[in-house]
């Protein structure tokens, strides 16, 4: 009996050691950021394409207030409610004290300067495909935004999801640097893929997830239940979205569907963001969407 207990304890210890090893927030080298100089002007384009303000502006912020990234919006999910943090340049309550490599680590690897895992409510599983220069440009643009002294609020996430260390395993299982759509792409399709898969993180809402919250990339963009479980996010593969490329561009510019219904819900934020990009970028997204494997449902 005593031997049994010792054996079990031994096994438990090995398991724990394995967990600690596999879940450790490991950060790959950020040397590529050494000497990178950000261009705030391109950074603004990256900022809108990546939809930063849609989640990090205060709830109901309008106009110029959208650029005050005080956070505080609530995102209820099956795992708990996440609250967007203050990412304004405030040195105490925002991220004004961070360096570019630290910002890049958070954005592309989901690890804070303190070395803890960030929840994938921050879509680093998409942002990890950003080119370093765009991250540097975005960082430069964010320095130009107003600081806010609003303290970040804690997430309301319950056990076991409140153990951030478990995210290390989650990342190993579900985060990849690989593009979903591969093959010979035209420059326009390549740009569209970069906007859709990396910056605008379309897949985060439009792709279904498994029970652990990992994206089912085999069903890319084929529609899902919204994060709060209350509504359906539509299938935007060619199997369902039969709009022409021009109609997709029109929708991303004005918010009007071909039937002149108008965009609503969180997608209205996305259209506001997309409308700020050059026409060629919206056309690139439309061209990309036509490449996505058709799934009918």
């Amino acid at each position, binding site marked *: 009996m005593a031997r049994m207990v010792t054996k079990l304890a031994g096994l438990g210890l090995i398991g724990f050691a394995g967990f600690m090893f596999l879940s450790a927030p490991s950060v790959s080298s950020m040397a590529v950021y050494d000497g990178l100089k950000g261009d705030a002007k391109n950074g603004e384009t990256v900022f809108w394409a990546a939809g930063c303000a849609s989640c990090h502006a205060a709830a109901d912020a309008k106009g110029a207030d959208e650029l005050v990234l005080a956070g505080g919006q609530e995102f209820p999910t099956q795992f708990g409610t996440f609250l967007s943090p203050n990412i304004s340049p405030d040195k105490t309550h925002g991220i004004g004290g961070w360096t570019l490599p630290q910002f890049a680590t958070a954005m592309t690897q989901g690890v804070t300067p303190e070395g803890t895992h960030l929840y994938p409510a921050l879509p680093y599983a998409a942002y990890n495909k950003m080119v370093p220069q765009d991250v540097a440009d975005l960082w430069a643009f964010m320095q130009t935004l107003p600081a806010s002294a609003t303290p970040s609020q804690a997430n309301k996430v319950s056990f076991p999801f409140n153990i951030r260390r478990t995210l290390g395993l989650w990342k190993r299982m579900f985060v990849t640097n690989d593009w979903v759509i591969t093959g010979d792409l035209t420059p326009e399709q390549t740009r569209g893929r970069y906007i859709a898969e990396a910056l605008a993180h379309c897949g985060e809402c439009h792709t279904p997830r498994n029970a652990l919250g990992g994206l089912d990339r085999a069903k890319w963009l084929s529609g899902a239940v919204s994060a709060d479980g209350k509504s*359906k996010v539509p299938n935007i593969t060619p199997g369902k979205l039969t709009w022409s490329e021009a109609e997709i561009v*029109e929708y991303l*510019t004005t918010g*009007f569907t071909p039937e*002149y219904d108008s965009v609503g819900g969180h997608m209205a934020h996305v259209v506001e963001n997309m409308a700020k990009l050059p026409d060629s970028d919206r056309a690139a997204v439309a061209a990309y969407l036509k490449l996505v494997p058709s799934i009918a449902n």
Partner: protein
Amino acid sequence: MKTKLVAFTLLASLTATAIIAQDDPFKDTVEIRHGLMLQMATDLATLGGMAKGTAPYDQASATKAAGNIAAIASVISMEQFPAGSEAGKATDSFALADVWAKQDDFMTKITGLNEAAGMMQTAAATSADAIKGSMAQLGGACSACHKAYRQPES
């Protein structure tokens, strides 16, 4: 006996009808709202066709369509949104409870729609290019409300 049965059946069916009617006191309200939106979409299609160049610019029909949109915008008020006519309570309603909880903001967005519709009227009388230039603003006014106050499809 037979008379009693008939009377009972009649009474029972009347009660049932009354209950159904009572369940749905906002049927007309919701239909009016959707009708206003559908007419607006129809007029937007007229303008949108000219903006995209799939239909030739025609000042008379553009002016009529933009005038309709402005007229509909001016009709929309809390009158079409009586308390209780929200999604989950009134059949077919997509109006979120925030319409009433944040009524001032809701009405600000309706004012925004009226302004955008006014600009579209000027554009419609001018050219297809001017219409094209005003579509995004009008679309923005529509989605400002639909973003916060319309329940996404479930």
